[in-house]
């Protein structure tokens, strides 16, 4: 392994050296601590959203069995569950958590370019979470408008939380966007500017490509949410009519004029659809690295994988209106958005083929991270295919607002990214903590989660075909629904409870392993990328000791023929071990 000194970057070592408990663990500017803070907050608030989903499932499976769930609270649970899971858990965890931890390490940097801004980002994120959670406790409670917050319903009497709840939600989103922008500026600048010597863009692991592109999407798409949040706050508090139409509420003419609810929908989905890829692209990147490492094979079609990430990123901005087919639109627009939606499936499918081809004839090690990564391919194909159904206007119209949609988006952007989150946590846990997790507990956690997720979401597709509408507190005695639909709902609820309880295994595993886990060897998976090549496990402040690493090859030199070791780290010069396909090639 060879290293190079870059003395002109030594200032990165000492300009924020932590020496007290507070600066080391609380007001830390170290990207690894900030990553764990981001991850910790995100998972904590994610558990709240998980509990909310169980409360909803109890009502759906066993109507009126619990007195605390009434129609108002049910809608509040729906709203908060959705918003927390999409924005405050997944976005924050992938960008703030994994982005913060992996970008500097994989690029061979000591830290982010702007460490203070990075620290500010996590505290502003915490503030946004506190504001959001506070909305549960204000008079009127949290908003119950659904996570899409469509006006006029979100501001109209009869919807829970129209006093303070909706305002706190919008303010919280605004604060979150500020945090995400601060983080995003750091990630973009760090990837472009702080790559170590030899780390060309095309030698970056796909994790960095995924997180980097998702960050660009986040930076350009979040303003749409901010714009709609600002305008909705004004509609609510000073009586403007950006979104609120002229309407009569409880027999009384409201002061609003001809505001356009459709305008809100455009703005919301202009953010909302790229948001799907803000969550998906980092997952695509991370899972690629987990698969290649545990299959001991180079990722199939690396360059195509990079192009696919970029193509998906670009296309994700011109598909938003496929969420609005039922809002009424010019059929030509519908045709346009259906076409772009189907086109975006091409690079996505390409990625799936490449993951499967990476596994083909690989030396598969079915450890816990690999199990989760392979499971992701299953659930993602499943959720992706139902997306093709819904992307077509004619099929979407009857299925819209049914449980088919719920099943689709939970499979594709709920279960799939969460499986990648688990794959990544198990994969990088030895690096982050210096301890090994318990393999048996991990496998129990995997099987219960994987099968549990199918037991919950597969039947929902059938409920959707039956016409069971989403977001209904109670189905009552509806004639078109057979008794079996209710039985299926009860079964889904029982599965969901088992699935939720199975997550306790994960937390037990993490805490037990942190306390009593076996010490992790450096580079325990035999990986090639830089984060595993730090002098200490876990990496210390400044990551690399005195000298920054020097890179000589891409991140996927696994099982190069003729080599004793089935991996060649990125820092090994070509003169010592031939680079990938150079094997057996005589350049002279």
């Amino acid at each position, binding site marked *: 392994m060879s290293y190079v000194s870059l003395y002109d970057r030594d200032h990165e070592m000492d300009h924020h050296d932590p020496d007290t408990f507070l600066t080391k663990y609380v007001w830390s500017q170290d990207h690894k601590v900030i990553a764990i803070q981001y991850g910790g907050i995100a998972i904590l608030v994610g558990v709240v959203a998980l509990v909310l989903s169980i409360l909803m499932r109890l009502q759906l499976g066993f109507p009126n069995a619990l007195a605390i769930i009434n129609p108002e609270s049910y809608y509040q649970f729906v709203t908060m569950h959705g918003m927390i899971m999409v924005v405050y858990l997944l976005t924050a965890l992938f960008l703030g958590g994994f982005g913060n931890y992996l970008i500097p390490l994989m*690029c061979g940097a000591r830290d982010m370019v*702007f460490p203070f801004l990075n620290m500010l980002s996590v505290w502003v994120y915490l503030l946004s979470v506190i504001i959001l959670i506070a909305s549960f406790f204000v008079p009127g409670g949290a908003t119950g408008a659904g996570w899409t917050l469509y006006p006029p319903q979100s501001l109209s009497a009869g919807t829970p939380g129209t006093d303070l709840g909706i305002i706190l939600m919008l303010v919280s989103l605004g604060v979150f966007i500020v945090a995400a*922008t601060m983080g*995003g*500026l*750091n990630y*973009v*600048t760090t990837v*472009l*500017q*702080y*790559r*170590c*010597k*030899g*780390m*060309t*863009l*095309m*030698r970056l692991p796909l994790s960095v490509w995924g997180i980097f592109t998702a960050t660009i999407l986040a*930076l*350009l*798409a979040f*303003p*749409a949410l*901010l714009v709609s949040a*600002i*305008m909705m706050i*004004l509609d609510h508090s*000073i*009586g*403007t*009519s*950006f979104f609120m139409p002229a309407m009569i509420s409880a027999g009384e003419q409201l*002061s609003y*004029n*001809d*505001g*356009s609810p459709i*305008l809100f929908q*455009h*703005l919301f989905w*202009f953010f909302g659809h790229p948001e799907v890829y803000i969550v998906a692209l980092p997952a695509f990147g991370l899972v690629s690295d987990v698969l290649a490492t545990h299959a001991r094979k180079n990722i199939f079609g690396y*360059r195509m994988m*990079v*192009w696919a990430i*970029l193509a998906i*990123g*670009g296309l994700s*901005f*011109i598909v938003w209106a496929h969420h609005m087919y039922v809002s009424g639109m010019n059929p030509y627009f519908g045709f346009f958005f259906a076409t772009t939606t189907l086109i975006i499936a091409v690079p996505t499918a390409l990625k799936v083929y490449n993951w499967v081809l990476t596994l083909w004839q690989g030396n598969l090690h079915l450890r816990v991270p690999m199990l989760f990564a392979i499971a992701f391919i299953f659930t993602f194909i499943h959720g992706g295919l139902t997306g093709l159904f819904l992307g077509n206007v004619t099929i979407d119209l009857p299925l819209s607002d049914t449980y088919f949609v719920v099943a689709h988006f939970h499979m594709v952007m709920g279960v799939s990214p969460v499986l990648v989150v688990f794959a990544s946590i198990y994969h990088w846990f030895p690096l982050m903590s210096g301890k090994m997790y318990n393999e048996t507990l991990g496998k129990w956690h995997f099987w219960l989660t994987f099968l549990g997720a199918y037991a919950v979401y597969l039947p929902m597709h059938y409920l959707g075909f039956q016409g069971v509408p989403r977001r209904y507190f109670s189905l009552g005695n509806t004639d078109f629904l057979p008794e079996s639909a209710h039985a299926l709902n009860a079964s889904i609820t029982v599965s969901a409870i088992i699935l939720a309880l199975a997550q306790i295994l994960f937390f037990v595993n993490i805490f037990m392993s942190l306390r009593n886990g076996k010490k992790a060897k450096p580079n325990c998976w035999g990986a090639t990328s830089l984060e595993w090549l730090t002098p200490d496990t876990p990496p210390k402040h400044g990551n690399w000791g005195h000298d920054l690493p020097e*890179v*000589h*090859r*891409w991140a996927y030199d696994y099982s190069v023929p003729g080599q004793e070791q089935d991996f060649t780290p990125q820092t090994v010069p070509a003169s010592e071990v031939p*680079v*990938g*396909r*150079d094997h057996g*090639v005589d350049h002279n």
Partner: protein
Amino acid sequence: MTITLIFLAIIMATVIFWLLRQTFNVEPWVSDELADEVSGASLDLKPQAIALTTFMAVATSLFALFASAYSLRMEMPDWRPLNEPLVLWTNSAFLVLASIAYQWSRNHVANTDIGSKRVLVGLIIAGIFSVLFLFGQLFAWQQLNDQGMYASSNPAVAFFYVFTAMHGLHLLGGLYVWARSITKIYEKQDIRLVRTSVELCTIYWHFMLLVWMLLFGLMIAT
């Protein structure tokens, strides 16, 4: 949404084209001694410059979305065009002068040493005109308010308040960095730090001027 789409298409096309250019004809799976010499520093850009460019892309997206919302909302029957207060022309002149003063400052900071009073004078003039612009905007608010044109009166008025407020907030953020530049000069910090700060602020002020011109143009044209 056309305005947003055009803006975003340009930004995304630029980003994706630049990234793709780094990937065409590159075969990372073979050895490449030239690539061994490449690093983040090869870009030859200051990190602050990348951060500012990124931030301006975010702000562009924000204002483009506001402009799109404006054009979509205009189509509704209750829209009454706003007679923009005349003071906005004076304010625009203030912002132009602030931008010129910043440019003047920047030209001197590039050529002279830190002791140059011209840099400081240029910065102070730019600051004064920027503050005058902001007060001028508040004065325009006051005028509209006195005429009974509240945000709830008409969507065109509401958009006027929102546009000016958002633009003003961005300029206030710029003034915070402006104050830090002045502090750096007073504290006689490293000339390179001052240079970076003044150069980037100049770009930001020109950007703020451009945004204001486009927003103002949109409002008077409709």
